[in-house]
């Protein structure tokens, strides 16, 4: 993946598993298919003649717009997953994400209070996990989703060991 403008120079990014796309697809389906289905109900009722309001164009337009937005989000998922990256440097961990709204974050090992590994049902069936880093700041929203379970465990051990070696107070 090409390095973006806000990434520090000379960083070799590691990607998360491409299988994470499936997890995101399931999440997308649960959220958006339901939403579009519910928003389509007025259209069905109007077509069946049960409802006089809303007018037909509105009943079509609302779910159609939502469907377009949902499809747009669907099309973005593979690219968004490809945009997630992390890099272990000597003293800190870099995490990046996003295509339109990009974020590159640096978490010093000595600042980590603890490291979480969480696995949801879909992730478990694909052998993936989500790694979460916690510092004393609530603003540190450092998540690494879609890591292969083995890589997640390795990273957790590695980060804990490095954190211990460099542990600083607040």
């Amino acid at each position, binding site marked *: 993946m090409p390095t973006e403008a806000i990434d520090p120079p000379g960083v070799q990014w590691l990607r998360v598993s491409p299988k994470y796309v499936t997890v995101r697809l399931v999440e997308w389906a649960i959220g958006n298919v339901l939403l579009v289905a519910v928003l389509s109900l007025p259209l069905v009722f109007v077509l069946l003649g049960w409802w006089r309001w809303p007018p037909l164009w509105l009943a079509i337009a609302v779910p159609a717009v939502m469907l377009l937005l949902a499809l747009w989000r669907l099309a973005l998922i593979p690219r968004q997953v490809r945009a997630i990256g992390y890099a272990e440097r000597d003293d800190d961990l870099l995490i990046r994400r996003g295509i339109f709204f990009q974020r590159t974050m640096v978490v010093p090992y000595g600042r980590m209070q603890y490291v979480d590994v969480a696995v949801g049902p879909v992730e478990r069936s694909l052998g993936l996990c989500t790694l979460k880093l916690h510092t004393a*700041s609530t603003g540190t929203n450092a998540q690494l989703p879609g890591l292969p379970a083995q890589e997640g465990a390795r990273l957790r051990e590695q980060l804990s060991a490095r954190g211990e070696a460099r542990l600083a107070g607040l």
Partner: protein
Amino acid sequence: MSPVDPAVALPDKAVDGGWKRVHPASPFVRGWVALAAVGFFFSRDAFERMLQGRDFVDPNLSGRVPWLLAGGAVVLLLTVGGFILSWYFTRYQVAEGFVRVNTGFLFKQQRQARLDRVQAIDIVQPLLARIFGLAELKFEVADAGESAVRLAYLPIDQAKQLRASILAQAAGVVSEPGSTEEIREAPEHVVLSVPPGRLLGSLLLSEQTVGILIGAAVVVSASVFLENTAIFLALIPGILGIGASYWSAFNKGYNFTAAISPDGIRLRYGLLDTQAQTLPPGRIQAVMVRQPPIWRLFGWYRMHVNVAGYGAAGNSDGAARTMLLPVGLKSDVLRMMSLVLPDPGVDEPAAVFNAGLEGLAPAGHVPAGTDGFVTTPRRARLLAPLGWRRNGFLATGTALLIRSGRWWRTLVMVPHQRTQSMALHQGPLARRFAVADLVLHTTAGPVIPRVFQAGVTEAVELFDQQAARAREARKRQTSEQWLAQVAPQAPEVAAAAAQTEEPQTPNQEDRHDG
């Protein structure tokens, strides 16, 4: 229920002696609302009859009086009994580098907090406690949310004594285990105080007042337009609320005094409820200086801090505790800055802070401002038409200064070794103008350090350098015990402290726990 022997309650052999109880009156001071409620419940009836000019005791109910009295007595006994039990089973101990508190008799709770992790100690005196000469001690460790340890209530002298001994142990002053010598309170030196007149003025000229005036204008014009005066009645709760909020701000900010001592910064304030906060050196995570537009007429500023353990300023209590200076002149701000950041890491701190508070980059095509602050590049002036000459950052040897806001002038300062993590943000518009935002993550609090719209190359450079600087600064900071490091003090206080603390000096030990 038999009294619990603390040695049984805590199997750890190292912690036996020195368990103490809080003042016996404390449950009554804390629970006076419950007592008042019981009294109110049983006396209301008689009181109402008295007001109506009838007999004090309802003659028709004379048969029920013994039952009522008995019921009242039972409720009263239960309440008082609960108070006594809760007092009896509350014990605390300061030893071995820990402060421990045991509470509860049905559901026991044991808490211990490491002294060298202390972030702040507050002594709080609500009005009633003040009348009885009592005080509550709040001990914060690095965890947002509730206080780690609260001791309510102790006699004020004992609370001060305990604070001194906790701070001394946290600082790394080691006294022999057998020694009964009391640890004296560290000497302090008052740095500034806020006159009540200025506080009142600052409240009357606050953003809140402007909002109220606008709201009042809207309401008056609406009532004139609709020819309806009932609209004013609906405002009464709002007016009461506004009055209460002004009163609470005045009550909290009254007699605000800041002092420096070897134990850190002392802040005292309060009209009816008084509070004394102690912030040990190096515990301040971020500072913000802010000036609303109207305050510019008088040259007033206000300051907020992030301290781990104080948490976000969600409630009014938190808002008061994170206030470093409710209102002050620029000289006050500079003095506070010198306490918070004794070593600013630049040659001319006053000039730099001045530029941070008021500076404005030249409007022309100059890449970097002449005052040292790196501001938003001219190409992005459409993104921030007002703020682009103001938004900027400056990294000194010890801290990162971030300034922003053309109208609400803001200067944020984060010491390098306090940076938790950092993130660069860039949206599509920012990418179009080749700028990016840098967010520094710090502990929960009112200060959210963010560099707005810095040029991409400058932002990435700062991001990289800042990570390195934070790393270096953390390496220099080897211990949580501030006496083990060079204690940051105002020079004259350091001299005074050196004289008065002479007998303790041989006891100091260079303990590094890093």
